[in-house]
């Protein structure tokens, strides 16, 4: 298990290195240079600026500088905001995105497991049909539409009851996180519901379930200790990519709900062509996603005893 985790981490580091290289290459393929986009600047000022951002060095030198700084955990200084470092930006905005993402993934996973189990237990009866219909809509309606409709609906609801049930925009207490988390988690929830349904259906007719029934285990007992435990495993494997989807989905939801998270900041940085921030945040996001996938993999290895056997023999 430990060896497996180490191997995963090593592969992850290679991936992050590749992401960093691809980011660097893409950003240096930009025609012209970042300083020429703004207003005209005096040659001396330009020289100083180039020295500040290391743009006077040859590309290979810049690349090694970029990588060494990244290893040290230094993502550089913003181009458009004087003396604000990318690290500060991440420190300030990432926690908000992370909390929102955590809520969203919790909503998605809990909902997916619950609805998925229900559809499998009531297969081809009305709860199954109703939930699967909702799932189809969940994957077909873009998150920004869900977000906007929820804002509209809750605004009307708040007005109707004359009190602030949920905040429709901004960031603050728990009530601020509810709507964006649901909007963010909805499509992932639909996806997980489908997955849970199919894996549950496979489990329902398994031999060990029949054995358990023959032993006289109650149906709730079977559900919790056999069906759920086995059916949940595929859901855990896709949580890694699901976190990735939710994190990048935050770009839209954060701007609809005016949440000062890192996603919204990234979008703004792209609009302002803030090169260092774009590069830093891309690598940071990439590393975060890779880390999440590895974490989920390791957790999966801990939960599913079969994976150890598989690794030992193979």
């Amino acid at each position, binding site marked *: 298990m430990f060896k497996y985790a180490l191997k995963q981490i090593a592969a992850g580091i290679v991936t992050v290195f590749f992401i960093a290289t691809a980011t660097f290459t893409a950003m240096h393929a930009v025609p012209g240079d970042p300083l020429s986009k703004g207003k005209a600047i005096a040659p001396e000022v330009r020289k100083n600026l180039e020295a500040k951002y290391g743009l006077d060095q040859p590309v290979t030198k810049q690349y090694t500088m970029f990588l060494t700084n990244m290893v040290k955990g230094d993502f550089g200084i913003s181009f458009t905001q004087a003396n604000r470092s990318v690290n500060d930006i991440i420190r300030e905005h990432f926690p908000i995105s992370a909390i929102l993402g955590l809520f969203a993934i919790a909503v998605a996973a809990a909902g997916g497991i619950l609805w998925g189990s229900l559809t499998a237990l009531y297969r081809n009866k009305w709860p199954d049909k109703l939930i699967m219909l909702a799932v189809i809509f969940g994957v077909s309606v*873009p998150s920004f539409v869900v977000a906007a409709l929820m804002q*509209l609906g809750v605004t009307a609801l708040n007005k109707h009851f004359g009190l602030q049930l949920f905040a429709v925009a901004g960031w603050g207490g728990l009530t601020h996180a509810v709507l964006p988390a649901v909007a963010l988690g909805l499509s992932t929830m639909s996806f997980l519901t489908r997955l849970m349904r199919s894996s549950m259906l496979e489990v329902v007719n398994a031999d060990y379930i029949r054995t358990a029934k023959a032993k006289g285990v109650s149906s709730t007992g079977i559900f919790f200790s056999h069906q759920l435990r086995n059916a949940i495993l595929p859901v855990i494997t896709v949580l890694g990519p699901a976190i*990735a989807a939710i994190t*990048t989905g935050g*770009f839209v939801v954060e701007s609809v709900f005016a949440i000062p998270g890192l996603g919204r900041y990234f979008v703004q940085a792209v609009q302002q062509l803030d090169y260092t921030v774009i590069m830093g945040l*891309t690598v940071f996001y990439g590393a975060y996603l890779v880390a999440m996938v590895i974490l989920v993999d390791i957790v999966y290895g801990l939960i599913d005893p079969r994976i150890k056997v598989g690794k030992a023999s193979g």
Partner: protein
Amino acid sequence: MKTDALTRSDFVPATRTGSAHQISRPSLSYWQDAWVRLKNNRQALASLFIVGALFLFTVLGPYIWTQSPARQSLAEISQPPTLGLRALVVDGAQTIAPKAVLSASLETLAAPHTRGVALQWKPIEGAQGYALYRNEVEPSERLDFGLPLAELKGAAQLTYQDRLNLEPKTYFYTVVPVSQGEEIGSRAVTLEVDVQLALQENEAQSYVAEAKIGEEIRLPAHPFGTDYLGRDMLARIIAGARVSLSIGFFAPIIYIFLGVLIGGLAGYLGGRVDMVLMRLTDLVIALPFLLFMILFRIAFGVGPGESGIIPMVVALVALSWTSSARLVRGQILQLRESEYVQAARLLGAKTGYLLLRHLVPNTIGVILVYLTFAIPSTIFTEAFLSFIGMGVVPPTPSWGSLSDDGIKTFLTYPHEFIVPAVFISITVLAFNLLGDGLRDALDPKMRGRE
């Protein structure tokens, strides 16, 4: 001797009736069989019709609905869906003379229209001045008079002309007397006014060349309303469909073709080629998709205000070919080892025959299903990126950029957002259901799963 001995006539062959050995059902090819199954799936069939209708809508739309998606009209800003409003042609500079005698305490002078509502009221006792308000709902006892229009100092002025952002609907005007700086709400008078849409002569003549002051003209129909610049939403949706659906169709076709090529090569050749190609696939899969879509956009030199549709397709192709490559490689590997392919090879089949007769036909179903799911997800990606201003940007219409435009005025004019959002949702829904149906039809083993 027996008389009933067999004669020659007993040995005449029986005529074949054929009923015993006839194949009861016509033999169906793989595709015919799939079509029969698809036809029986009502959801999938309905989706197929929707997809066909969308295709016709996109291709024939501009020839049937000839309004320009770019024509701006100040007179028709953010109209809700209409089938052609009637508009009065008026002289905007006209001054309206006050009446000598009023029959009510608050009256309109001349016909109220969007170019101006002239009001006159009877003097209210004790008033040292008047405050004017306008509301879209009838003021209740909470004395909510609405939007403050003016405060008139002195009791002499008893007329007012409102020209502030008037729209063709019903307004409630309230005149409140002011005494010693205090508004006396209890003595306010309110008037309900139906405001008619009006155009100035030169504006009207851009619709109807011979329009004259005092006439009524009919404006063009807008079944989906107009946007914040008065452009026809239906025309913009059609133009947007052309952009969104072209990206949604062509990008997946190109990247799946690339994926099939790479996956097919890797699977068929195997060995070192396979290893190198699969390493490459692993690396590309590791790139965070949306981040690199945005990054590529910058790398192609597409500025913040530019659309860059071709760079977007290139980026989609560069980042998305991987899953189809993996899919096809797996399929080819499996098929290559299957008994019937080995038997064919044993019987002396050449590579070309194997590819065309066994490998391609057995992979194409999977690829087709994958394509059907790739189209909606690409439409989604386009909409997502355009919505955050990283894809197609206004003024180029796409369903994503139309939603981005619409959400800014969502609370006041919801139709501008809802119409493109509904189109995105229906399209994605139809393709998803069609994909489900195709998967069931083409791969019966998979039926009922997922």
